[in-house]
């Protein structure tokens, strides 16, 4: 008979690890089971090409909840977040738009494009700051069920109502706009510079199968604005050692609290006895019993694969079946012999260009057309890209003088016409590389190695269904008390003793850890 655990956590992604750390901290006997040889899920660092380390999937950190960093003392476990300070958008006419870390520099740069936008930018920033502040408390709360009359739900709804009333009319109106508009329409209300709107709107489409003109994308804009580091909103950073180092630091904290983490240990089934989860079955057939089982996988795997549908209410199964994944992004990781030179800024602004992000979003039309390709089942011929050079900020990522380049690419639809093949993957990689080459001639000659990741690869390697990077689209109908299904947004599931903790639950998305933490708190409350 195997050792008995209080809690088994399926999946050693960052959320699963956060759940494990919090539960172990509370004195539970915790076992994390990870299918791959290393923890991290989509937040992993791997040496894909000798000497070159890549944050293979997720590549920047911003939303990691500050309370998790404090509670788990992550800096002591190796977490070091380095600032990512600027964004440069090369334009097709050879010009560029830059947002620098210094306010005066940014203002002067925007002024070059539009004096009015230079001022609107500050006001927009202030509004988004308020909006982020308004939405922030929601990220840390268990979503109440608006249809429930349970005292806990009513109290939470009341608090929420008060919170929104306290925002004041002006901000409440802005919030409603953000919740309903497309990012393009929302940005049109603020700015006249096309390239500025294009670059801003890009953060409204990340991880969704929507274009900048699709309603609802304004909220995703805000979701990305909520990035917060050291109490500063809109701060994005690199984890030293890549995003895998974030996972490793959480794993280290979890182990320090007494959690056991086992890799190469894929779970095939959740054991159910007497309509209650009683343990798991590993790929090799081993059964491990536990009083509580937590899945940090996405909702489809959690409910449709690990558990037999007959243990779940059929309406719930139908809801989960309808839950949208629609992976739309890919990733190209490149080992470079040197840094590419962009036509728009040959001197790289004295090194600042490569220390920040390069956004390939030269115009609204460009981004919308990239979506058009995807809408009809093709990858974007000229895709939106978010490019960073992690080795410039963290030299340990590549051999001296050499560099790693991370290209987040959208759109690459999971359901490609005719399906993804090796040839299609390489064609997609070529489209990415050729597009970069058009803004940075000579780039191709610097490439030592390239790794092209399609949504199908994301699904195959990390297990994220349809390769959706948020474990389910960040669409309004799939958020808060609707994530992943109405009535089941509070980390419990219809199966007793079975909990959900991944990004497919509220609040979802990004290396945030909030889902994992809230799930742990819920489990502790239920077991108290």
């Amino acid at each position, binding site marked *: 008979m195997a050792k008995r655990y209080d809690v088994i956590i399926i999946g050693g992604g960052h959320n699963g690890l956060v759940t494990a750390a919090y539960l172990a901290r509370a004195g539970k006997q915790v076992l994390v089971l990870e299918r791959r040889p290393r923890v991290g899920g989509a937040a992993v660092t791997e040496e894909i090409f000798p000497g070159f380390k890549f944050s293979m999937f997720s590549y920047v950190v911003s939303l990691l909840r500050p309370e998790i960093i404090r509670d788990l003392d992550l800096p002591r476990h190796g977490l070091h977040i380095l600032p990512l300070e600027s964004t440069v958008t090369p334009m097709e006419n050879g010009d560029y738009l830059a947002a*620098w870390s210094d306010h005066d520099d940014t*203002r002067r740069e925007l002024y070059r494009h539009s004096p*009015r936008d230079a001022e609107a930018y500050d006001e927009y920033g202030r509004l988004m700051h308020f909006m982020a502040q308004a939405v922030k408390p929601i990220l840390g709360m268990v979503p109440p069920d608006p249809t429930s009359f349970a005292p806990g739900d009513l109290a939470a709804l009341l608090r929420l109502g008060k919170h929104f009333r306290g925002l004041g009319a002006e901000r409440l109106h802005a919030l409603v706009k953000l919740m309903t508009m497309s990012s393009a329409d929302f940005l049109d209300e603020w700015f006249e510079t096309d390239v500025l709107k294009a670059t801003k709107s890009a953060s409204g489409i990340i991880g969704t199968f929507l274009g900048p003109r699709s309603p609802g994308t304004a909220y995703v804009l805000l979701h990305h604005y909520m990035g917060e580091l050291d109490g500063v909103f809109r701060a994005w950073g690199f984890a030293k050692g890549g995003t895998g180092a974030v996972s490793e630091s959480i794993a280290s904290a979890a182990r320090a609290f007494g959690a056991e983490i086992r890799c190469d240990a894929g779970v095939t089934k959740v054991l159910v006895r007497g309509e209650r989860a009683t343990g798991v079955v590993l790929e090799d057939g081993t059964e491990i019993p536990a009083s509580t089982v937590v899945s940090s996988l996405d909702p489809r795997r959690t409910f449709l694969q690990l558990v037999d549908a007959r243990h779940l209410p059929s309406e719930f199964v139908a809801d989960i079946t309808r839950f949208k994944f629609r992976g739309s992004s890919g990733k190209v990781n490149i080992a470079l012999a040197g840094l590419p030179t962009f036509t728009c800024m040959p001197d790289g602004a004295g090194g600042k260009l490569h220390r920040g992000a390069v956004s390939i979003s030269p115009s609204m039309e460009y981004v919308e057309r990239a979506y058009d390709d995807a809408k009809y089942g093709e990858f974007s011929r000229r895709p939106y890209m978010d490019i960073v050079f992690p080795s410039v900020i963290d030299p340990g990522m590549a051999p001296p003088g050499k560099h790693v380049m991370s290209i987040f690419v959208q759109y690459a639809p999971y359901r490609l016409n005719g399906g993804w093949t090796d040839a299609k993957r390489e064609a997609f990689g070529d489209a990415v590389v050729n597009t970069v080459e058009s803004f940075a001639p000579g780039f191709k000659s610097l490439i030592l190695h390239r790794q092209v990741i399609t949504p199908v690869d994301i699904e195959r390697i990390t297990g994220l269904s349809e390769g959706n990077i948020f474990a389910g689209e960040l669409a309004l109908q799939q958020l808060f008390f609707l994530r992943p299904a109405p009535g089941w947004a509070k980390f419990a599931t219809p199966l007793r003793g079975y909990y959900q903790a991944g990004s497919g639950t509220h609040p979802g998305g990004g290396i945030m850890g909030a889902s994992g933490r809230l799930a742990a708190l819920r489990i502790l409350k239920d077991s108290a």
Partner: protein
Amino acid sequence: MSLRNTPFHARTGPLSEGQAWRRWAGYVVASSYELSHEREYHAIRNAAALFDVSPLYKYLVSGRDAARLLDHVVTRNVGKAKVGQVLYTPWCDGEGKQIDDGTISVLDERTFRMTAADPTLRWLYLNSSGLEVSIEDVSERTAALSLQGPSSREILQIAAQRDLAGLKYFRHTSAQIRGIPVTISRTGYTGDLGFEVWVDAAHAVPLWDALMEAGTPYGITPAGMLALDVARIEAGLLLIEVDYFSSRHALIESQKSSPLELGLGWTVATDKERYNGQAALEAERRRGPSWQFTGLAVDWDSLEQLYAAVGLPPRVPSQAWRVSVPVFDPGGRQVGYATSGGWSPLLKQYMALVHLESSSASPGTQLRMEITVEHRRKQATARVTPLPFFNPGRKRA
């Protein structure tokens, strides 16, 4: 990417002995040219100090409805102002909370130059809907020098080769200095006799040279922001983001102020048509503002005693400070806060600019201001003093 130099940098750069620069609206300007700002301060009150004030935001507002636009934006009555006049004025949001303050020069019936501490282009545009007006940001192409002090008029008269006795306080005139067309306004930020000279940025350096040459026999002294800060506190002139927050930057309601709360009630016109914040300001005037902005003079004897208690002679700050310092009534209740303060070398007085609840703000009221003496928080007695602390007759004469 670095901060920008002003058009005078070819001259001001080499003058800087300690490379002490400060940011101002995306530019660098001298904190002080010499290692101490003391002599620069005394030049303001004793001879003439020359300041580079080019970073100010400047807008040219022109067209048939230019006065209408400005009248809608600011609280002073622009329509009534005459050509040649300069108005100091705040402007407010719809709730009567102050956004910024600056000046408006009436260049002709249809042309106005507006100065502002913050970028204001978008705000002017937002208010110009339906009006026939053109708004031009001339911040970069207009350079400006401020010549302040008792000798400033004589120096300018020599440089411009004309009599300026007729140029009254807050008036401006066109002139030529060594063939360079300039506008001279009798304005400044020191509360002294003084002028500001506006010039096309291309002529900046020759203008500097002309003024320095004409002024050398009179003790003209290039001066930086540290000296200016002392003088503006003596003059009771408030500074945005220091003494008040722009309502557009405030994060919470209590960070906002109305002109009536900032001692600028005199700038809020009662004789003009609708303008931003009018209803709120009129209502506030009727019920009386809850806050007052005024001076506070720290009692020397009290200061001396606090230091004597730890065995030290009294100390005064060597530079003006810009932090929030609590102010209490004699019973120990906090009734306000100081936002700027410092030692006046001229008046030999420790002065502060304070926001006080109206009930504690009448001149002469005895209060206490927090002073840190040898790492410990103490309270020195202080007296409410009307602004300005220093108001020489030559300012308007």
